[in-house]
């Protein structure tokens, strides 16, 4: 298993750099992962990450994009409830990139 080092500690990650253990996650670690993805975390970014983590806690899966869009629209105003806005926040894809930062497993599309 590959690992990622942060603050002198080894964290297990998968082949694509996603944390293996959900409980390893911390805000600091998220910041660190974001940096490796060239993302500067803002409140808006955190809003997404927090929602993802909450949703995952409840459903054991990352939400569909359309659920995420709707939720962000609810919280941050309808003008931001769209995929375009999410892609501005996470150019690597709100599902893939944001999940990585949120410490969730890599989302599976359709299987």
């Amino acid at each position: 298993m590959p690992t990622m080092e942060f603050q002198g500690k080894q964290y297990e990650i998968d082949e694509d750099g996603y944390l293996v253990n959900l409980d390893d996650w911390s805000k600091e670690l998220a910041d660190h992962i974001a940096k490796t993805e060239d993302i500067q975390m803002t409140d808006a970014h955190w809003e997404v990450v927090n929602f993802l983590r909450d949703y995952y806690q409840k459903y054991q899966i990352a939400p569909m994009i359309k659920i995420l869009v709707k939720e962000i629209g609810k919280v941050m105003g309808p003008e931001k409830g769209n995929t375009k806005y999410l892609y501005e926040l996470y150019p690597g894809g709100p599902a893939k990139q944001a999940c990585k930062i949120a410490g969730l497993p890599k989302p599976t599309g359709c299987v």
Partner: protein
Amino acid sequence: MAKFTAKPDELSKIDFKPPKKGWMDTPVEIKEHMFCHAAKPKELDVVGFPNAHEWRPNDEDWKLPENWEKTLLEGMRDLLGKYRSFRLFMDICVRCGACADKCHFFIGTGDPKNMPVLRAELLRSVYRGNFTLAGKILRKIAGARDLTANVLKEWWYYFYQCTECRRCSVFCPYGIDQAEITMMGRELTNLIGLNIGWIAGPVAACYMKGNHLGLEPHTITSSIEFFVDDIETITGIRVNPTFNRKGAEILFVTPSGDLFANPGTYTAMGYLMLFHELGLDYTWSTYASEGGNFGFFTTNEMAKRLNAKIYAEAKRLGVKWILGGECGHMWRVIHQYMDTWNGPADFLEEPVSPITGTKFENTTSAKMVHIAEFTADLIKHGKLKLEPSRNDHLKVTFHDSCNTARGMGLLEEPRYIIRNVCNHFQEMPEDTIREKTFCCGSGTGLNASENMELRLRGGLARANAVKHVHEHYGVNLLANVCAIDRATLTTSMDYWVPGVTVAGVHELVGNALVMKGEKERTQDLRLEPFPGKEGNE
């Protein structure tokens, strides 16, 4: 792993020249972006697959279990005794090469080992060396070779570069079906723990939670609830699906991708609207919440274990018959395997459409009806009020899924539906549809992201045909009846033919369906305004 960045014009430069050296002397090269990650041991352990271990395909050492050669050869002997197809297809190929340029992976990669005949020879050579008299005596002259670690790697690499689409078998003069051979090859790799994550994960999830995506019961209801909200937004009508309801007439089973991945979700909305409009007495199940079967891409036994849920749940709920959603390999399994594995379904009744009274005479034993058969019958009997002009902005073509085309023969039903819910329909070139249809490029559990180059190369042939009708007839929508198609063709179209969207047939039905008491529709099922209705909101 480096990100896959090759552009379409780079990828479509394909070298079809085989190497100078013979194929037995050309060792396999495991290339980035052409294979999927290894399965995680914990996922294999969930279902009790043997020899689960940590390994990486591009490592030199695959940490093979002790005596792996013996395990594989014994496995092979066992399979030869169980499947006439396997034994026969090992023996009778004359290597005429008619299959070679029929394979989408060969067309897209030019790699000679992706010619079905050669992909089969990888296994056949070891079969000859160990199970035939000529091979044992004449060795290489008879095309025989030993099973070595390199041969095994070659097997693994190429058996996970075949989507069991059966196109080769249409053209083979003896009907040799590479899908059968790949299935055997994958059975063998599963004996020594060499599965891929993208298959093992969904299999484990499906076993424990009922579906590939691992949607738990409350996730399913919340997701469908979400669709119900959207349907209300679009039509003003609130539909009321039920879950795990005993005494319903019909159990509805669809691939879980339709519940959680775009654009399959729109197809699911189409089902919900249709069933509501008909007043169908049906139920969803959270336990049998998967029509697809990734077990089918591992071993026969695993496929049977996952499939067993459908009949078991139908029995528990006491339904009369089962209706199945749009999916490709799901229908190969249901049509050709389910009754044999888990039948007889004598606790069910022979399916009759409660709306038209039509008896579905082609499924009197398995008792499971394809939704395209069901809907085509409704339309034929004039039971649906349709407004095809709502889809007038779409120029539609239809992609036959491999499994429904070549492992079933469901060709006209979806076309009939499309012609009734859309005004513009254009077929792709003759040699790329119906039984000659091309795979999306990512079937049999190869729709991961780390093997993107393989997927796009595999999807080239299909995309090329779409591009043809896109450029000549302005086709902008690729309809299909398969959940994997919906997900993977979207990626493939974005790459090869931008401007073409992908949709399930029942999404188009949902758009055209005029529901009793609906408000004037201004949005389609994707909540996008219909052209000309942008300002009405």
